[in-house]
């Protein structure tokens, strides 16, 4: 069991969400940085889609009530276990009574905690994710609060040295973006209808992520992309990553907690491989879009999948190495 002492700005239980239920009006939800959750789970000895806790901008604190193994990925919030630094993309043991605290994230937006056995909240419609808009799933269908106690599932924690090990995240390209982030998208839907002036300005501009952005969507600020004649559409299905252009001329990116349908004209869709990067862009930072075709989008996804597929075997070797090193402590 873990006890939330402070959730920080915003924390919720998330797994890989509820795909395939949009026809019922049930949104995706799930970890915003799915890659970070996937890797955290592998490090903690779980299946990739096991439920963990997503923290926003750090500032959290929690206590372990049983010996366990945990992994922390995503944004580096300078976490410490009873005062001992725990870098991001790291897995290690925790003893009952130890406290994990984090400062404000210095780089990136979201940290993901995976605990051996996963967070054992009820499975609802195939997922343990919190649907904040619908008020169901996760822990009581809501954001985590101080004092919440989260049970963990049964598991045999993987063997490793006490202080564990980490991923060489910088070299592996896992670190959150710093400064302007390049986000790839596939132009789609009404892209051609918007005309060359809007298309060129959209591609040439650096877009600021506004502070009222959240898990539902990112609001962007930049040059106005107003159409001379309004374009009205019937509501239609949208997916996380859909880039819309509302009448005010400032793009919006729909994300995990968005409605399942919307009616604004679209510019395209962020490629799935870049959603993890997008999730880590900090409020106030900038995004520049690069148009790619479907083939490049699929190649990027295949490259990420290949990396994730190789990880379990490598992590097993790393655990062995960690054990041997620990034997000399």
């Amino acid at each position, binding site marked *: 069991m873990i006890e939330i002492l402070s959730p920080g700005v915003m924390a919720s239980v998330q797994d890989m969400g509820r795909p395939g239920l949009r026809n019922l009006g049930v949104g995706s939800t799930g970890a915003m940085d799915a890659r970070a959750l996937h890797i955290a789970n592998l490090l903690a000895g779980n299946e990739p889609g096991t439920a963990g806790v997503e923290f926003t901008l750090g500032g959290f604190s929690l206590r372990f009530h049983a010996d366990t193994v945990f992994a922390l990925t995503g944004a580096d919030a300078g976490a410490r276990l009873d005062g001992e630094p725990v870098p991001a*993309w790291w897995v290690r043991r925790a003893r009952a009574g130890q406290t994990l605290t984090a400062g404000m994230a210095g780089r990136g937006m979201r940290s993901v905690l995976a605990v051996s056995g996963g967070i054992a909240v009820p499975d609802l419609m195939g997922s343990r994710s919190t649907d904040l808009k619908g008020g169901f799933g996760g822990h009581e269908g809501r954001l985590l609060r101080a004092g919440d106690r989260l049970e963990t599932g049964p598991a045999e924690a993987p063997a490793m040295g006490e202080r564990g090990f980490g991923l060489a995240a910088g070299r592996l390209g896992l670190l959150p973006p710093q400064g302007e982030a390049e986000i790839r998208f596939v132009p789609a839907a009404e892209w051609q209808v918007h005309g060359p002036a809007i298309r060129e300005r959209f591609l040439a501009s650096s877009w600021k992520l506004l502070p009222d952005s959240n898990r539902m969507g990112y609001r962007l600020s930049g040059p106005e992309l107003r159409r001379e004649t309004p374009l009205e559409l019937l509501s239609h299905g949208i997916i996380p990553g859909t880039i819309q252009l509302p009448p005010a001329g400032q793009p919006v990116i729909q994300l995990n907690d968005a409605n399942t349908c919307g009616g604004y004209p679209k510019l395209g869709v962020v490629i799935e491989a870049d959603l993890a990067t997008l999730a880590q862009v900090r409020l106030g930072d900038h995004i520049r879009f690069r148009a790619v075709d479907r083939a490049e989008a699929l190649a990027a996804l295949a490259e990420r999948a290949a990396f994730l597929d190789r990880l379990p075997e490598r992590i097993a070797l790393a655990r062995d190495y960690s054990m041997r090193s620990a034997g000399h402590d």
Partner: protein
Amino acid sequence: MTDPHAAELRDLIDHLARRGVVWLSVHAGEEALEIGLRPATAAPPPPPAKIVTAQGPGLFHPRHPDSGTVPPCIEAGDFLFPVAGGEGDEPLAAAGAVVGYGTPLMRRAGASEGGKNG
């Protein structure tokens, strides 16, 4: 004692006493000085400094390469493995150096925590 070397002599006596020396005799020809030693403090003698060595091959990072904090790490393949060490320890290998089994990495400053290997 008002000799200008009194402080240095006091340090020497403390240093020897902490290492278990209980009697100091200094002879100069016919003259002899004998001093019974008692340390000025009751602190136990510090253990000798410990050298942390590498337990496998890799690149040595005196600080975590991404966060810049402790722990020092050895990078092997896609992974970082912590090396025993903390603030104030003295790196014995250069940052980014290729190290192998047994390569000296750090000299522990806090000797009471010493003896760990990376």
